């Protein structure tokens, strides 16, 4: 992580192009994705690569990208992961419920009957409300929930105390849950 920031903030410019960053960032993304998918269950073969490739294409597919700092970078990376995971949840939810317009279906659900994919979609909707009110806290949620980063990692990325992240995360979860309840 440290190496990337050095390159990002090198005196040569206020950023650098994606080619140079690629190997370093790719490893970090992989590590992030692997941490995301570390599993307690035995015997599962996990493939972080698929998710990372997707995220990478999202971020770099449009050509050169520049970031100002690691917070910016990881913010975008975790947002990319969020979009991918939400798409997949939508797809699976659609398969299960057989309707085309998932947003309508969610309104009909009660939390007890929702599948985990439905719940993820509900969380995402609530998260959109949080983003409108408080983008900073919403970012913590994206990094932790979709990015799978630890409190320590988030704290380093955002340049705050670990305690702060822990506090914000606990609060955000309760806030989001409350918001979901008000919706359905």
């Amino acid at each position, binding site marked *: 992580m440290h190496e990337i920031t050095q390159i990002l903030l090198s005196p040569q410019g206020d950023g650098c192009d994606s080619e140079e960053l690629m190997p370093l960032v790719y490893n970090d993304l992989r590590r992030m994705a692997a941490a995301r998918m570390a599993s307690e269950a035995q015997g599962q073969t996990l493939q972080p690569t698929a998710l990372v490739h997707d995220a990478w294409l999202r971020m770099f597919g449009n050509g050169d990208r520049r970031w100002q700092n690691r917070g910016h970078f990881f913010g975008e990376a975790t947002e990319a992961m969020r979009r991918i995971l939400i798409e997949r949840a939508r797809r699976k939810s659609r398969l299960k419920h057989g309707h085309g317009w998932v947003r309508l279906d969610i309104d009909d659900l009660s939390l007890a009957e929702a*599948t*985990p994919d439905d719940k993820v979609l509900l969380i995402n909707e609530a998260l959109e409300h949080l983003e409108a009110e408080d983008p900073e806290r919403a970012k913590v949620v994206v990094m932790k929930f979709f990015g799978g980063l630890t409190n320590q990692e988030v704290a380093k990325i955002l340049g705050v105390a670990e305690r702060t992240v822990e506090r914000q995360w606990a609060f955000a979860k309760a806030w989001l849950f409350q918001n979901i309840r008000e919706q359905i």
Partner: protein
Amino acid sequence: MDDTLSREEEVFDAARKLDDPAEREAYLDRACDDDSKLRVRVEALLSVHSHAEELFTECFSALRSSADNPESPAAARDLAQGGEEEQPGAQIGHYKILQRIGEGGCGAVYTAEQEKPMRRLVALKVIKLGMDTRAVIARFDAERQALAMMDHPNIAKVLDAGATHSGRPYFVMELVRGTRITDYCDQNQLDTRDRLELFIQICHAIQHAHQKGIIHRDIKPSNIIVTLHDGLPVPKVIDFGIAKATEAPLTDKTLLTLQNQLIGTPAYMSPEQAGTGGLDIDTRSDIYSLGVLLYELLTGKTPFDSRTPDI
């Protein structure tokens, strides 16, 4: 950062760390002072705190497993079957799944370890997806009081019911380890007298249930397990309360097309049960099923061959 939210967050954070309700109240009094709006908000958040944690833990795991390539054979199979199988070590409520021991029309049965209020082994049956969980649990709850009052050596107790992470209903029962009655009789080459003695015990059990107002509704050999106590065979009737709870109302579907999906097995269903879709039946349906069971115990076949229904 939003100032209102920051204040809420601060108070919420301090309050949730106070386990003692009196301390918490006192703190909230001081912190919120005369800001009643703040108090209401924080109390609302505190009340959902643990549910929120559960929700996020559950969904985090779901996201984690969905992050695999969705085209993988395992994921495709999961989607096709409509849900994952419980793995050994999985936690469902206070119960830890140990091992799968069987599969029925309704779902799979596992041995599980109960942790609270005491440690013991139980049987845990998870009902397949496709059954309306809330309705199932509600129906079970309605009977739970009566079920709890049943206390008979030939009846396996139903202990608890709930819903798994993926929203499927589960039932927790006294663990009965043994052989289904028809197999037991055949394997041990029981003569007519011995078979009748086992049958009489089952009748006593059903009688006990009927006196408590419980109808089993699904009496068949696979629901009667023979265990050994001090070397003596003891038949136990299992799955009380479950048939009623999981019963979906049948419409005008015929027996022929529903052979495998009927709750209650066609060969053992009384005519009124099969015909009206299981509604409006009473204890006599159980008696009918007992009759079929007796027939099978004595002859090795059911009176109506389930392959060619003639009702």
